[in-house]
């Protein structure tokens, strides 16, 4: 028994030169993904599948290689492999973090829904979860009504006037369930959206208006 345990310890020590440098960025990446919250969870799901396939394939190859005789790895080679592993393992997460900070999508909050009648309007102030305004703001209006037997939700138009730093920059027509995009110029401090409901005539529609799935896409170009 003792000689088996000793052999296992010996094998682990032999692989420490690449396992330890890989462990550092792996832990860092895990912490970063946890810090990213929902976005991190999505990212982890996406990269999980190729990693799992790669890991399984590597294990099969490693088993095959393990059976064959291999000459002992030199100290110089161990240092080189370890340094390269650390470099790749550190550079990739660092690059990922930089990309996330500069270019990744940012969640936007619009607050609670507004109740609007035909021709009524309200101004909402979207808030960024982090970072600054720059890029394309997308969201999906979700309209609902309790006024039966009206035909309000699908025919209604939502006229959205975009105001940045007090300047009106355009009007966008939106509808229930259809994603809407508004371009926000660089360097903007404050964004306001004025929502006006234009319903079908003679319906006396009263609509609850919520802007959902709001995201700021910070395109790098």
């Amino acid at each position, binding site marked *: 028994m003792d000689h088996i345990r000793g052999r296992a310890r010996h094998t682990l020590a032999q692989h420490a030169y690449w396992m330890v440098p890989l462990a550092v960025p792996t832990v860092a990446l895990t912490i970063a993904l946890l810090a990213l919250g929902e976005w991190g969870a999505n990212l982890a799901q996406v990269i999980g599948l190729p990693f799992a396939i790669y890991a399984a394939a590597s294990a099969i190859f490693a088993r095959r290689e393990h059976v064959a005789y291999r000459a002992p790895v030199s100290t110089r080679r161990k240092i080189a492999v370890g340094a390269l592993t650390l470099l790749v393992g550190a550079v990739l997460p660092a690059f990922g973090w930089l990309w996330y900070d500069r270019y990744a999508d940012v969640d936007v909050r619009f607050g609670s829904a507004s109740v609007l009648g035909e021709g009524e309007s309200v101004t909402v102030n979207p808030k960024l979860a982090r970072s600054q305004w720059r890029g394309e703001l997308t969201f999906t209006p979700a309209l609902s009504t309790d006024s039966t037997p*009206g*035909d309000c939700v*699908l025919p209604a138009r939502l006229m959205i006037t975009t105001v940045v730093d007090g300047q009106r920059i355009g009007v966008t027509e939106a509808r229930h369930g259809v994603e809407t995009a508004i371009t926000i110029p660089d360097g903007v401090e404050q964004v306001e959206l004025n929502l006006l409901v234009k319903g079908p005539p003679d319906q006396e529609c009263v609509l609850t208006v919520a802007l959902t799935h709001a995201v700021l896409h910070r395109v790098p170009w």
Partner: protein
Amino acid sequence: MATVNQVRRWIGILLATSVVLASGCGEGEAEVDPEEYLSGIVSIGVNIDLPGWSEYSNGVWDGFDITLGNWLSREIGFDPQYVPLTTDERMSRLTEASEIKLVIANFSMTDERREDIDFSGPYLTDAQGVMTLAGSPVRTLDDIENKTVCVTLGSTGETRLLAGKRINPLSENTIQRCVDRVRDGSAYAFSTDRVLLDGIVAHDPGRSLRVVPDIRFGHERYGIGVRNNRPGLCNFLRGKLAKFIDEEWDDTFRSKLPGVSPKDRKPNSRDLTPCEKPS
């Protein structure tokens, strides 16, 4: 020792498994192609005994809704089979298992109905009105308060009229029964879409009925009812309806509803209601 072929086989199994798992995460069943869905014999739910809109006489169907159904059948290439429905059955036959694929039956599009079915339209817009005997003194909605007013069960007219008005409702399954109620005096008035009332009065040989001229409330938009979560079919029919409105609507309205004004009843073919996304 594992051979290269064994290793390759394992990698293949892993990749195949991942592809199967990934495909299993996709959205629900795809919608049948609309042209395939509307092929062969297509059962269309319609009203019956509704003058100008949907009548069956001597083995022949006729009316505005029937003309629309026949036009769609020629345009798309199917054999229409008209199935008479009561007002209430227009919804139930599209939500339960039945042969009905389309309902063209003066079917008003509403948010509440859209929770259970889809609509393509509108192909006609209208308001609600009130019909009485020709000699009735009724002039405004206040004049029918505390009176017995016939409404068709499951109609938008029933819902709208009962909201906030002190009337004694008398619900019937069909429009024709409500007309009979007014004729025999068991109902003081009948309330439904004005265009239906106009059609009934226009086809009333004895001129014993009238539509109260100044009573106009609510807003009705007729659409073609289809089963729920059929955005492809809805958009397909929407395109056909736009063509019908541009090319056929005026002649159809004039020929099927003679003496009835088309004013404010023809929708803008370029502004039909968008189709609902699957829920």
